[in-house]
């Protein structure tokens, strides 16, 4: 859910004069072979302004940001900094002009320490050698500014994703960026870390740093932004001032049509118990024994802070991180899963958190990705059944409205939302009894998110039990029949729908007792 709202910031000083535009784009156009990604987009940014840029996947947000940050250059149109036209020759040039881009996928060397990463390429020197003590001292300052309390000698690879992201931000700040472009910065952050980040953003904004904030989390946009620019299909679709920022309005502009209720809060019939977890111990947190049940047709959300062990629990249920104790009971069989193949046999399916590393073989065709789990079942004495493979592909692409020029397209060329649908398609082809979803809508645009929510509901109606992990409070509250909350490797508690609220979830997630 949204962090507590704070005072709105003024971007207009007392004299009533608005400061000159820090960054301006006019008529930015960019084409790639076969497609026009941006068709004359305008952008305005003042010092200290927090501008949110929202739009569906493929709307052109990434391309626009890459142009602003110097990664690519525009074909037509004009970019101005402080009123002067510029054309960046590369990232260095843009950085030199004060524009820094913080990627969604982190750009850190995880075998080096924090200070080394912050000063990579600009290490302070003394007599030609690196001045490590100065580096560490300065790094500590920057870390303080982003509220990250780790020693600068810490190896980045040992930090959680959330902390790594804060290092990235510290790095950008250390080059005195005047414009920080953040691409989905909170997708891997816990609630607490998100609030930390917001505090940093507000602080920077007050100091005159402008922030361009790309996010699919409209709640955050509402809490943070002074203004919102909406892109759709490579064009400006609207601009919203702070007082007019509302969820429905944003979605309407993004999608171009009225979108009915985001989460449908339907009362669901749940059936019998279909899975029992009995004292299961994950290798990640072997000191805690997990106990819970799942009924067919119910959707259970799993909430918790980053590091609470939610992903690890799903991985143990699915057998990829075999349990070190306890057992599971699924539809009449009691066992302790030792491999994914075993779990699949019992009717489980896992849509993993990291779809590119664990969910898809990126260089393989969509069709082949979708059949991967069902090859064993559909084989004819060891031979591939191309017919059923084609059936699965046709059905899933149609049912889930996967946008692709062909089913032989490699999975890596799809947008995040479509990639997620391919992974789902793979598992739905197996007709699972129990569907485990790990952050099913992370990094996905509004339209695809809706599709996935509708799909979850349809499956639940058909009797599938769904257990989904999510870091988005809205999602947990909006989609769950009940929620399980984890805290540091153990199940802190469960909440029925009626008692689900941001407070009650956070209470348990931070180790408190049930309210």
């Amino acid at each position, binding site marked *: 859910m949204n962090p507590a709202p704070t005072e709105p910031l003024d971007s207009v000083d007392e004299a009533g004069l608005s400061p000159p535009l820090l960054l301006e784009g006019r008529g930015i156009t960019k084409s790639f072979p076969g497609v026009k990604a941006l068709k004359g987009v305008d952008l305005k940014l003042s010092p200290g302004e927090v501008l949110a840029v929202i739009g569906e996947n493929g709307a052109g947000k990434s391309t626009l940001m890459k142009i602003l940050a110097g990664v690519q250059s525009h074909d037509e149109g004009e970019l101005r900094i402080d009123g002067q036209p510029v054309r960046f020759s590369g990232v260095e040039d843009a950085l030199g002009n004060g524009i820094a881009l913080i990627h969604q996928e982190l750009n850190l060397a995880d075998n080096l320490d924090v200070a080394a990463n912050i000063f990579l390429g600009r290490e302070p020197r003394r007599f030609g050698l690196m001045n490590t003590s100065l580096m560490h001292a300065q790094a500590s300052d920057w870390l303080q500014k982003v509220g990250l309390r780790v020693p600068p000698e810490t190896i980045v690879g040992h930090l959680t994703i959330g902390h790594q992201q804060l290092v990235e931000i510290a790095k950008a700040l250390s080059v005195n960026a005047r414009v920080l472009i953040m691409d989905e910065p909170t997708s891997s952050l816990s609630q607490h870390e998100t609030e930390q980040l917001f505090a940093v953003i507000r602080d920077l904004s007050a100091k005159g740093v402008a922030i361009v904030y790309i996010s699919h989390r409209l709640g955050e946009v509402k809490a943070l932004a002074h203004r919102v620019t909406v892109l759709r299909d490579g064009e400006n679709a609207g601009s919203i001032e702070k007082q007019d920022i509302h969820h429905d309005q944003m979605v309407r502009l993004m999608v171009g049509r009225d979108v009915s209720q985001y989460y449908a809060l339907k009362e669901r019939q749940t059936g019998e118990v279909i899975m029992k977890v009995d004292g299961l111990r994950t290798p990640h947190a072997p000191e805690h024994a997990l106990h819970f049940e799942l009924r067919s047709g119910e959707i259970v959300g799993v909430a918790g802070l980053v590091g609470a062990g939610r992903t690890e629990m799903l991985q143990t249920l699915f057998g990829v991180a075999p349990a070190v104790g306890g057992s599971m009971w699924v539809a009449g069989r009691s066992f302790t899963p030792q491999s994914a193949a075993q779990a699949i046999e019992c009717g489980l399916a*896992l849509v993993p958190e990291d779809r590119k*590393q664990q969910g898809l073989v990126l*260089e393989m065709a969509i069709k*082949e990705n979708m059949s991967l789990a069902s090859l064993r079942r559909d084989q004819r004495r060891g*031979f591939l059944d191309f017919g059923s493979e084609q059936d699965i592909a046709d059905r899933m692409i149609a049912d889930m409205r996967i946008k692709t020029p062909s089913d032989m397209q490699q999975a890596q*060329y*799809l947008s995040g939302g479509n990639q997620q649908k391919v992974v789902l398609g793979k598992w739905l082809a197996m007709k699972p009894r129990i569907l485990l979803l790990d952050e099913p809508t992370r990094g996905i645009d509004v339209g695809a998110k809706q599709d996935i929510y509708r799909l979850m509901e349809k499956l639940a109606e058909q009797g599938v039990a769904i257990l989904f992990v999510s870091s988005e409070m809205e999602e947990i509250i909006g989609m769950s029949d009940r929620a399980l909350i984890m805290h540091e490797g153990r199940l802190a508690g469960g909440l029925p729908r009626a008692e689900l609220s941001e407070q009650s979830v956070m209470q348990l997630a931070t180790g408190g007792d049930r309210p």
Partner: protein
Amino acid sequence: MKKIYGITGIFMVVFILTALMSSSFLTPYNMERLILRTSLFGIISIGVGFVIITSGIDLSIGSVICLIGCGLPWLLTKLSLSMPIAILVVLLATLMIGLLHGLLITKLKLQPFVVTLCGLLMYRGLTRGFTGDQTQGFGQVFKELRWLGEGRVALPGIPLETFGLPVPFFILVLVAILASIFLNRTIYGRYLLALGRNEQAARYSGIHTDKMIVVAYLICAGLAGLGGVLFILDVNSAQPVDFGNFYELYAIAAAVLGGCSLRGGQGTILGVVIGAALMQVLRNMITLVDWIPTHIEYAVIGAVILVGVVADEVVKRVASSRQIAASRQ
């Protein structure tokens, strides 16, 4: 698909060039030898192709050829084992080697490079040991066995003394067809292709990746063993100190040229065979053409492989940017 056209194109160019540059190239005797060598190297290249598809490598192939190539005649002549027993021993030896490689790599998570490098050293050393470093051969006996390597099948209308298709050629065709069916039409081939690109995702999809990797190393060792038998049958005289030396490099080069990326998950059997053919035509060219000094053989081959791989990368990037644009609808 595009890769096949590339390698076939290069092959035809080199073939035609060699034919133009040397009058001895298109002679029946030379063609017979060329086809024979292509068949032998083709078989071992297919074996290493499977391993490369799993994003592994096998450096021990040459030494396995030495072990089996010297070991078989040794078993038959020095130990006087009967033919069936000797064949059985050889078969078991290759299975054990493949299993050893596969298990060390999957269970102990050792690097394929390291494991097979040790194999390269150990198997040859072992062979030199039990043969006393003596040359091995079949002599004039074992005619039925030797037919497998020396036999020729006459083509209609052409007398056998002039030209005949070597028996190993038919063995290659058989192996290639079986391998291609296995790779492209069975679920196991699909598993190998998937796990070669992304072992984690394959595992998360319920594939027994460890078992499949062991299978790949078994296939490789098995075909290396078969190659070893055919190589010794061809020359009928092998010195353990250098029999099969460097053959793994030819095999790997053929596989890479034929489309097996060392990153795994890619490759076609036909491509590998054409790659093997290309390697042999190149060697032929260097030997036959007067003004190319034979001692730069390795340099020429290395250069050709590099050019082939670079061209492949370039084509891939061009195709990739087109694909990206096509998807951003």
